[in-house]
């Protein structure tokens, strides 16, 4: 097994001779995307014209379907089939895993008469056109026997239990230390249910050739989707060819298969023709996962000098009754600030709502909204600058595990950010700065997000014309995967970017875990790097063993790869010449990465600091961001341009979290009140003013051979809290209930007599 010590050795990527690593090169697939020629799942051209499927969904949160009247739908023009649980094809039972190596279990659609949440698929209509299918779907008449449902989170805390296989973490004596602390904070913060609202609704096009099904779908995990479909249909996974080449946003919400995948495959088999199915925007809200609401109690006890002595973060959240997902909103706090006496943990309420699941920075995104405000509140109580308070509680080692940090530049993020943002302009006394009707204030927050490396493979081939093609069952959900894989391959092989092709999103390719948990670049990229290193070895062997090569006889250890040329000092030839002569069919090798045996001996995270300036309208209570700046430390940056896009995108999610984004549950139906993009308020262009970010120089040699880490989720962690703290600084009104909409702000202003 490898050790992190092996990763500290110099290699082509860390040496970066051609300088392509880190460079802000244009997105690999960018020209296709800006010209509308990148085929997303639903754009796929099937071998013959597809029929169109439309989902019919439940209008109660819990109960049974007692009757489904499909007569009118079946008789409607163009209709080819109408399914409910009464006549849907047999599928493997939910959770079944015929192949123990399958990454996902069976996930049948229309499996029974049970309704477990509002918006669950209860019928399915396929017709020759979208117009006919949609009209027929409206004709399906469903009757229910409703059962009592638990849908009100805040009223159900008495049902909260410990999540499965989880205990609270106690270190030292929290109650004793908290009781003895001279300065304390005890506040509860609430972050609401949120939806991913990826621009591309989930969609699949499916067709069969004999026993094999091909599906073009929108999913973040290639193998997960392939295995789920195979298990559900009870066929070998080798009979499922899953492609997901361009994905219109994922953010965690497309980490799993949905009914479009299963039903399009089943219907295509039943009808003997391609079938495509897309969720409507409204169906996406209930039919796919969401981020659950979280209530977080934070208790801090400190000495007058700001040193924390007692520290507790306790989160209550919810998930679907039959599920086990936990929003681990307290986890991040275990690694952030030093304090000898600690308590952290979670409670879970099971509810009859659609499924909760991971959404961009699960845990950190809602969790940091609490602690990073509580630290602001404590700083004010102590008369300390919020940055200074955090510096005084900066740990030397991981405060919970006692492990060394691989690298930790949180303090530098804060000090560098303060300087660039102009933090010294902030008046520490709240409510002092006016700009006409606007009260102006500044706030900051820290950011932390874990870093992960998962096992992955990649394949790379060189053809006789010198083209190098990287292949991987990986996905690009807008994160820049195509681009960074091309950069890594080019630098590893010492060839110009124009000589590299990247092919991903295909279950036939060597598997990678997909996009999620900001592990994508490190995981898929490291496998690509290892594949490249193996290709270097193969080509070295080829050259030194070929009497017709100028490199014949070696020595192999002096071989270099640069500018498309393989050389030993002044003996050289192009890679194309070598391969064309010595291996005219090309050379293909694979490579793989796995976590180092000692990787977990280090506490490993990405860090950052957010700075925000807001204006609060004294008359309307409206909050407008005026400026936001973030500084981040996230390992070696592979592409300055795409990494920055990722991080600023995350920060903007934080702005939405603080100011506009939430969904409420209608207690009558267990449905979400916001079911479209006019009601669910993701930030629009006019909401985002003067927002920028930078990365600190960093290489984390404990992370992987390239010293890189993830950036996709770090940007949202803490961002909303910086805005909340700025609102307080502007107004003196401390809100703890996200998002901070005008009604709440106005009530706070009025309570203060403003």
């Amino acid at each position: 097994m490898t050790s992190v010590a092996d990763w500290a050795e110099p290699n082509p990527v860390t040496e970066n001779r051609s300088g392509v690593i880190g460079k802000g090169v244009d997105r690999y697939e960018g020209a296709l995307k800006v010209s509308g020629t990148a085929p997303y799942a639903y754009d796929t051209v099937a071998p013959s014209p597809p029929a169109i499927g439309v989902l019919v969904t439940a209008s109660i949160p819990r109960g049974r379907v007692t009757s489904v009247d499909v007569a009118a739908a079946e008789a409607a023009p163009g209709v080819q089939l109408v399914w409910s649980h009464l006549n849907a094809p047999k599928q493997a039972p939910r959770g079944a895993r015929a192949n123990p190596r399958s990454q996902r279990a069976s996930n049948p659609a229309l499996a029974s008469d049970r309704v477990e949440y509002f918006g669950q698929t209860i019928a399915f209509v396929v017709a020759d056109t979208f117009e006919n299918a949609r009209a027929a779907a409206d004709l399906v008449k469903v009757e229910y026997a409703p059962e009592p449902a638990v849908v009100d989170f805040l009223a159900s805390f008495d049902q909260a239990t410990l999540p499965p296989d989880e205990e609270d973490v106690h270190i030292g004596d929290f109650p004793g230390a908290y009781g003895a602390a001279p300065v304390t904070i005890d506040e509860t913060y609430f972050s609401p249910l949120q939806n991913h609202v990826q621009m591309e609704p989930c969609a699949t096009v499916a067709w069969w050739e004999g026993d094999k099904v091909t599906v073009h779908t929108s999913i973040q995990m290639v193998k997960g989707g392939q295995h789920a479909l195979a298990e559900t249909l009870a066929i070998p996974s080798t009979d499922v060819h899953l492609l997901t080449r361009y994905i219109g946003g994922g953010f965690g919400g497309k980490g799993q298969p949905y009914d479009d995948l299963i039903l399009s495959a089943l219907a295509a088999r039943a009808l003997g023709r391609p079938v495509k199915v897309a969720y409507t925007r409204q169906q996406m809200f209930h039919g796919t996962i969401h981020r659950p609401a979280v209530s977080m109690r934070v208790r801090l006890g400190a000495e007058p000098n700001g040193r924390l002595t007692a520290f507790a973060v306790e989160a209550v959240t919810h998930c679907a009754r039959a599920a086990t997902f936990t929003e681990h909103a307290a986890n991040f706090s275990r690694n952030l600030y030093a304090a000898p006496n600690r308590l952290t943990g979670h409670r879970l309420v099971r509810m009859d709502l659609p499924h909760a699941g991971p959404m961009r920075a699960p845990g950190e995104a809602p969790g940091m909204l609490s602690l990073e405000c509580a630290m602001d509140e404590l700083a004010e109580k102590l008369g300390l600058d919020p940055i200074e308070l955090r510096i005084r509680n900066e740990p030397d080692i991981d405060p919970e595990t006692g492990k060394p940090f691989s690298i930790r530049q949180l303090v530098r993020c804060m000090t560098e950010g303060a300087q660039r943002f102009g933090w010294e302009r902030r008046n520490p006394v709240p409510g002092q700065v006016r700009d006409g009707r606007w009260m102006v204030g500044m706030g900051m927050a820290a950011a932390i997000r874990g870093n992960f490396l998962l096992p992955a493979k990649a394949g790379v081939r060189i053809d006789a014309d010198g083209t190098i093609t990287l292949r991987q069952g990986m996905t690009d959900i807008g994160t820049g995967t195509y681009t960074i894989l091309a950069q890594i391959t080019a630098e590893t092989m010492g060839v110009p970017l124009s000589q590299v092709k990247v092919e991903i999103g295909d279950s036939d390719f060597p598997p990678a875990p997909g996009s999620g948990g900001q592990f994508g670049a490190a995981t898929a990229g490291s496998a690509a790097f290892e594949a490249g290193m193996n290709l270097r070895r193969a080509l070295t062997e080829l050259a030194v063993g070929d009497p017709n090569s100028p490199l014949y006889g070696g020595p192999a250890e002096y071989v270099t790869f640069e500018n498309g040329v393989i050389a030993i000092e002044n003996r050289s030839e192009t890679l194309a010449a070598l391969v064309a002569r010595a291996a005219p069919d090309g050379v293909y090798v694979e490579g793989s990465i796995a976590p180092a045996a000692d990787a977990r001996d280090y506490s490993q995270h990405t860090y950052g600091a957010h700075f925000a300036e807001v204006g609060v309208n004294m008359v309307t209570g409206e909050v407008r961001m005026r400026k936001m700046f973030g500084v981040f430390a996230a390992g070696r940056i592979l592409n300055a341009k795409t990494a920055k896009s990722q991080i600023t995108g995350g920060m903007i999610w934080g702005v939405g979290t603080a100011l506009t984004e939430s969904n409420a549950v209608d207690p009558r139906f267990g449905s979400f009140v916001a079911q479209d993009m006019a009601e669910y308020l993701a930030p629009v262009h006019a909401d985002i003013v003067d927002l920028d970010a930078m990365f600190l120089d960093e290489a984390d040699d404990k992370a992987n051979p390239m010293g890189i880490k993830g950036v996709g989720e770090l940007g949202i962690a803490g961002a909303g809290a910086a805005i909340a703290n700025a609102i307080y600084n502007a107004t003196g009104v401390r809100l703890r209930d996200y998002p901070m909409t005008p009604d709440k702000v106005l009530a706070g202003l009025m309570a203060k007599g403003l």
Partner: protein
Amino acid sequence: MRTTITVNGTAQTLDVDPRTTLLDALREHLGLTGSKKGCDHGQCGACTVLVNGVRINSCLSILAMHDGDQVTTIEGLGQPGALHPVQQAFLERDALQCGYCTPGQICSTVGMLQEAADGWASRETADLTAGISLTDAEIRERMSGNICRCSAYPQILAAIRDLAGEPA
């Protein structure tokens, strides 16, 4: 129902279900899948195309309403190797991530720049008698009908700024 429209310079006669939206006509019947469906309700802008030079949400418009109209889609603006200046600016500024809102953003930008040049006012226009000065606030306001969930807004602004030049 027969409708004749000119799409990207080519006259097309379609005989389709009268319920067909312009967006579905382009995507399903003409194979022009560059225009995207994000909401089908006029809320996201992913389906933005230019009709007689004016940007509209094609999902909110029935094909039959466009008999005789000139439609330009993202495919008609430019293709790889010969990108339209707006497409090129989006590429260089990384004004896209997943790319799903991007065709709509780009068509919207083309329409918006023309609207500004023609003196159309927006909520941000202080003086209705002077010509339009495309300040950052004007651009943000005028582009707010195109949601980008990846939140490429700073990069989209930079791309449009490259094209619009500095405000007067």
